[in-house]
């Protein structure tokens, strides 16, 4: 079977901590939820661990807010970011 490929975006303090606004990520078998994706990326170690450490992390799939258990599909746009502070 072919692996799923997703786009991952980072914003605000998280973008600064990770040093990049985003990347393309290939998901191994079994990496099916937002929580799985977060662990996968944080597991690279170094600065990437900040993704695991950030409190109150928020996430979106295809530009809609999503919970950690939400399913990630091939071609999805996933975003991780701190709590929002607009208005």
């Amino acid at each position, binding site marked *: 079977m072919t692996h799923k490929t997703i786009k991952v975006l980072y914003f605000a303090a998280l973008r600064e901590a990770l040093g990049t606004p985003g990347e393309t990520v290939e998901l191994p078998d079994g990496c099916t939820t937002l929580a799985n994706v977060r662990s996968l990326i944080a597991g690279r170690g170094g600065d990437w661990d900040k993704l695991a450490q950030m409190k109150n992390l928020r996430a979106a799939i295809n530009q809609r807010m999503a919970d950690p258990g939400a399913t990630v599909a091939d071609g999805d746009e996933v975003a991780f970011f*701190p709590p929002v502070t*607009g208005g």
Partner: protein
Amino acid sequence: MSVSVREADFDIGAEIDALLAGRTDVGAVATFTGLVRDMNDGSGVHAMTLEHYPGMTEAALEDIVVEAKSRWDILAVRVIHRVGLLQPADRIVLVIVAGSHRGEAFAACEFIMDYLKTRAPFWKREDTPDGSRWVDARDTDDSAARRWD
């Protein structure tokens, strides 16, 4: 288009006039304007940069407007949120709600602001005498948004 995310400033009077143009059924217009303050959390603020998630901001604001229209009997809504570099006293956000009666207009306007504060992907970074800092989300904004659940 009821929702705009942009760098340019807005003219509150002109936006109200545009929203009401040709209408004679509106009895009540509630507006909210958010501005950059020169102080926050005890520090002077020289400038502020608003980062956002292009595409999702518009979608999130449109969802909030749809939700407001489903909850209250209102006639027209306009939301403008600025991004980029702003100075103290600059306008950040404008919400206009037009309705037949004031109760619905006030409630929907406050609802839109409360939801915007917790659901629309904008982030503020402030420049202070001690350097640049990301603004922390406020617990009071979460509790304000939960009032409507």
